[in-house]
């Protein structure tokens, strides 16, 4: 049985990937996914906390170098690094429930932990995009992208008339249904742009195909199709 060996690559510093310059910040951006993944692997909250701490110490002291990362994905690299620390921890526990078979199952591509990781990563990424959209609206006088899109996302079944009335009440002046649709279209386009930019930040020197593949893998393509 072989596992990824992130410890060895962690010892090497590369500047080829922008995020590597500040791995702490990047790890913090996906902290929720890391915590979820560790929890899924270790299945014990106390031990999960220890694993997370061990992982963070490694990140802080050694940084990242994803030279051997599959398809240049920070997501995969980070998962490998976390998994390595988690498995090392499980081994040290000398717990009878920790068998080689169990450990081997953890690296299966469609394991429960893997699915939890992907779902949470996607959630973190989308949350970041929503935050960026909200910031964009705050900093752009008169912009309503966040208001429009969040209102629509919360109630996609209502028609434009209803949404326009609701938005008008919120902003203090009337909004026509066609205007709302126009706002919505622009907001979606900007949202899609932010998704692509955020995905691009998690990839090393990506091509268009790399980005599209990651969007497909994260089930985000439907959000950006038509805007690429």
């Amino acid at each position, binding site marked *: 049985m072989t596992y990824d060996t992130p410890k060895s690559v962690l010892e090497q510093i590369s500047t080829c990937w922008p995020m590597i310059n*500040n791995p702490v910040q990047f790890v*913090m951006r996906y902290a929720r996914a*890391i915590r979820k993944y560790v929890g899924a692997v270790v299945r014990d909250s106390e031990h999960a906390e220890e694993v997370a*701490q061990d992982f963070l110490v490694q990140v*802080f002291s050694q940084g990242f170098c994803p030279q051997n990362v599959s398809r240049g994905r920070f997501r995969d690299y980070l998962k490998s690094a976390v998994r390595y620390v988690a498995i090392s921890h499980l081994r040290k526990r000398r717990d009878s429930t920790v068998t080689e078979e169990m450990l081997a199952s953890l690296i299966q591509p469609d394991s429960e932990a893997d699915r939890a990781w992907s779902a949470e990563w996607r959630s973190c990424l989308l949350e970041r995009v929503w*935050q960026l959209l*909200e*910031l964009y609206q705050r900093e752009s006088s008169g912009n309503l992208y*966040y208001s429009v899109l969040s209102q629509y996302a919360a109630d996609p079944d209502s028609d434009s008339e209803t949404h326009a009335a609701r938005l008008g009440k919120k902003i203090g002046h009337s909004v026509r249904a066609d205007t709302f649709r126009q706002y919505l279209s622009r907001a979606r386009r900007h949202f899609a742009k932010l998704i692509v930019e955020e995905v691009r930040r998690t990839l090393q020197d990506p091509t268009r195909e790399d980005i599209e593949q990651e969007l497909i893998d994260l089930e985000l393509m439907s959000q950006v199709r038509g805007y690429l």
Partner: protein
Amino acid sequence: MAQERDIQLGKYQLKARLGKGGMGVVYLATDSRLKRDVAVKILPRSLASNPVAVKRFLREARVAASISHPSIVTIHDVDQINGQCFLVMELMTGGTAQDLLQRGPLDWKEATRIIADTCHGLAAIHEAGLIHRDIKPSNIMLAPKGVVKLADFGLAKLTDSTTDSKPLTVSNTILGTPQFMSPEQCQGDELDSRCDLYSLGATYFALLTGAAPFPDPQPLQCMFAHCSTPVPDPRKQRSEIPAECVDIIMKAMAKKRADRFESAREMLAALRACLNPGQAVSTDGGVKASGTPTLSPGDSMSFGASSAEPWATTSPLVNPGQTTVIMKTEGADAAARKRMILAISGGCLALLIGLLLWSGVGRTNSGQAETGPSKLGNVGPGNSSPRPNRPIHNPVKQSLRLELAADFPAMSTQVSGVAFADDAKSFFSGTMEGTVQQWNIASRQPMRSFAGVKQGIRAIAARHNWLVAGGEAKTVWLWNTGSDQPRATLTNFEGEISSLAISPDGKKLAVGTYSELKLYQLNDTGPKLIEVLGKSTNSTVICYMVMSVAFSSDSQWIAATSWTDKAVAVWNAETGALRDVKRHQADEPEGISFIPDEDRVVFATQHKGLYVWDLSQATIQPVEAGPPANRKPRVVRTLSVLPDGQTIAAVGEWGGLISLYDLHQKTVPVENSQATGTSSYGLDISVDGTLLLLSGGDKDHRKGFIQLWKVVRESSE
């Protein structure tokens, strides 16, 4: 520390090291020119040697220094000498909230008050376009008597970058305080003011429970928790914490910024609502509509007609041309009784007077009034003068302008107060250098200096041959204006003297300080205490930061504003009995003045403009028409109603301009055009209303001015 003694940094002599933080070392120092103790923070050379960082630091520190707020530690100076970049700040000797935490968690009310005051200062910072970025208990400074001030704002940005994009710090170096950092700070994202609200929420948690929400001593783990772990319920540590406090923490510390309070003002409103349960609070910190409740004297209740008009109880003040007849309902003196008779004559008489005034008869009345009183004493800062024969408001349109009559020699320090002498041929001034002088208006030269004064003067008043001054020394000096030796000295005040007023009859003296409000009887033997109207150690309605005091023109009533208590109150000046008080959740009252011969006071607030409080009717109405949002927020240090009963002169921190409000026309204020570029603190109006004295200077006390303005009235029809 021995080797650090006697270090001279410009005009500052470093005396002792007070502490060290991530952003440098703080020293106790003496300003050798102003002879006052200050705190000097010297930035690390590693930062000071970076020219881009220094430039940015100086720029931001100067913006920060321009903010004057009672809940923010004042920055006196920022400079660079021989490569040493340093800040000079107000010296705070009461410790920090972190020191309080050493003794364990705080009572929830005390914790909430501290956080509310901090949030108040934070709102001012945000409204100046700055982000603090390092809110934590050790940056919340405590002054004696419960005053809370936020320190170190504007500095943390230096730790983030030297340019807008390039990190200043080396990779993997964590600056800041992880226990109180927002997720977006941990993640290196672009920040906005809501990161401070998160940190303030974390600080609130710490004060309530005795520990930070994520107390892991390892910075990385702590940051990781901020980004990924739900905030624990503080009631699990202290079950007595009210749910309202928990709700505020949870909202402030929401992981998503959009889920947090929208602004510091919104959070402040929630905190104050927590302290004052039962009072609805609007999102901007104002009090929500609750009608016009019936109040008894002494009730402390906020109320408003709408959330947009937080102080107001009814909408329009008066329509242009409307006659206003006011009567007193209690403590009526002879003059008031006359007005009552007038009022009892009923609406027909009011209508008749109104018609007469509209027909132009009022002009004659006005002319009589202008030549009416001859010996009424001075109008001190925040005071109004009695005009027993003044007719009812004249609605004939008059344009009013100011002409600069005299510009007195520039001073080397702030002139904090001015007051006309009884004959209006001379005036008195007090400065932050601790001088009190009398000036000859004709020669524009000082006539004499008054002895005995120590430290800076913050307030001055003169009437009936009495002259009083007080300030930083927590002492009030009282002179007979014929002598330069003090007639009496009042000491034992708990706070610095912030406001003074002598009643128009010359028989009473009001002393407002940062911690109390006292009323004295003035007679030949000197001052005698009548009543302590407010004191921080008692549960009185006015406790802290008495910004302004004023007597009514008949000397029967005294009014005062308290910044910290957000209260305006009126007492009987004979007995000291409280007549009425009005409070507000978020807007701080400042200057105050009675309208001559009326049972109404005008007061200014920082955020919503000027208001008229009708004491008889228990109503408060805005002076300016239109929504409060259209009014420019201003720190009105002093205001006074001119003898015409119609014009309000207000000065403060907007470049030395004088704003003239028309009480009846509800117009946007007219301003004189010759701004000094600094702030104005002293204002006095001659008895006949034709002259206006203005004084001020920069808040660093490095320059000051005195100007005499002529009030010119021109009828437009």
